[in-house]
């Protein structure tokens, strides 16, 4: 829903926030470099990556996204297939490749559960494809990051995209 219960985030100088924020910035650099194989290493084996279909509803409807239909509803297998496809020589829609900038801002970090942290952020994706008009996607991210010996790993990402009708040719990229 548009109105979430307010929960104060960790102070911006909290080491947990700094580590989470750094993860998101590093991840954005990997996505913008189209370094898909490296990105796949950043997600956990039990990852859930979901982007529900947003719907236009009256303000007291009680929902503004579909509970049973998503643009992405991915586990590790599905994400790995997407990455492996992009790494073939035959993923035509990304050849020539998109040029993307993932602008990740408004980062707020919340502790728990356990060692994990929940991170709320905004992603604004600029996508340029050849000579065509660029495409934009804007979404809120609600992530769960899990600390490991090798640094944080993405255990869950819930994307609340702001459009009911996406103005993009496809979702061959990741947010």
């Amino acid at each position, binding site marked *: 829903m548009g109105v979430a219960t307010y929960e104060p985030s960790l102070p911006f100088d909290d080491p947990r926030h700094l580590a989470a924020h750094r993860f998101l910035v590093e991840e954005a650099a990997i996505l913008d470099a189209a370094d898909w194989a490296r990105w796949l290493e950043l997600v956990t084996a039990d990852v859930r990556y979901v982007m529900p279909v947003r719907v*236009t509803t009256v303000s007291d409807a009680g929902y503004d996204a*579909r509970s049973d239909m998503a643009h992405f509803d991915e586990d590790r297998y599905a994400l790995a297939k997407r990455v492996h*496809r992009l790494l073939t020589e035959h993923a*035509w829609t990304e050849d020539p490749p998109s040029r993307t900038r993932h602008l990740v801002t408004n980062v707020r970090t919340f502790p728990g559960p356990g060692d994990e942290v929940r991170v709320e952020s905004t992603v604004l994706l600029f996508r340029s494809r050849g000579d065509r008009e660029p495409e934009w996607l804007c979404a809120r991210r609600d992530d769960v990051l899990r600390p490991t010996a090798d640094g944080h790993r993405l255990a869950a990402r819930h994307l609340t995209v702001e459009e009911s*009708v*996406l103005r993009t040719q496809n979702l*061959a990229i990741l947010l």
Partner: protein
Amino acid sequence: MTRGALIDDVVGEIARGMIPAYVYSDADVFELERDRVFGRAWTFLAHESELPDPGDYVVRRVLDDSFIVVRDESGRVRVHFNMCLHRGMQVCRAEVGNASHFRCPYHGWSYRNDGHLAGLPFHQDAYGGDDGLPRAAQHLLPPPRVDMVDGMIFVSLADDGPSLAEQIGEFAFYLGMYTRQSPDGLELRGPQRWRVRANWKIGCENFVGDMYHTPYTHRSVVDIGLFREPKAHKRKEGALYFAGTGGGTTYKLPAGDFRERMRYVGYPDEMIDRAAGSWSSEQVAMVATDGFIVSAATLFPNLSFVHNWPQVDDDGTVVPFISIRQWQPVSATETEVLSWFAVDRNAPEQFKRDSYRAYLMCFGSSGMFEQDDVENWVSITKVSLGSMARRLRLNTRMGLTAADEPINPRIGGFSGPGIARVGYSEFNQRNWLTLWSSHLAGGPIERTHPLGT
């Protein structure tokens, strides 16, 4: 070019299998389509499973005409033109919800969900009550014709013409392969909606019969082991059929009986038993005897279907899915895609979950098949805009010799109606385009009844 010359050019060139490239972006062609295709043909709006309870509604379009599709308090599905009778405001600006009434935000006229005007402010003061505005006679404008088949709700914006059943014709046989896997039919989820800078016809033509693109456009999904079928040598063994106002593609299944072949594409036994009981003996025979199972299809004008069976895990588990999609024109060069996941209502819950995942991986806004399709269609549309494209006639003669003889004969004894042929050809695209061009040539729609209340 005058309108008459344009129509003559399109009809004549399509008749010889050479498609004027400009039809994929020309503004005059689009105006003709608006009037003579979408002003006439039965067009899909929604599926009744999207409206399970009284008051449930969705708002859908036929080009620029907005319609509320709603289940009224008596359980009947109604379609209302989404425009207030008073000053023309949209009475519903959400796309989905539940409402007993729709109230216009401009002056407060409110309508029951069956369309009747329930109330308006100052009826007595402003209109002298029923003397000036007889309230009981006022209701939101219905489209000229509404009808349903297999739970799918269609409208026609023409007062007269073929019925929905007549329009669909013998394609109903193939429609049932998707919609009647059990007597209770489908439930739909979605749609995903996104806009692509492509002409609406290209998706229709692709789904109606383009088996030839599958091995090449979709090579990456074979490379990664997501879908094992569309290798070139396997795809050409499929049959193409065209019947009534629809056509589609199939895959040839390995040897086996009905159960073995349905298992091959991933159906559990209880669904196979229900399909065997729900489908006609001829529909069962298309799988059991002929060995073909439906894949992509298009029903004229702009509704397509797909049925595939990818591998959904590293163990190689194969699960089939169905998607219904509409190519909703926005302009000559832009299309809104509405893509639903569809599954038999009586399917086991685990199957529904797995089938949904299979759908998301393959089709829809993020689907790994669909991504590469749309890339082609956007590119075609863009390059069709120029003066060189006006000179080019696209070769759509596959399956014909220079003397117009078919290269592959029709299948004798095929279980389904219409004409079916094995192998690569463009009979279906030509049939679809011929239907389309016959609508353009069919003259303007005469609106015999005044549309108003």
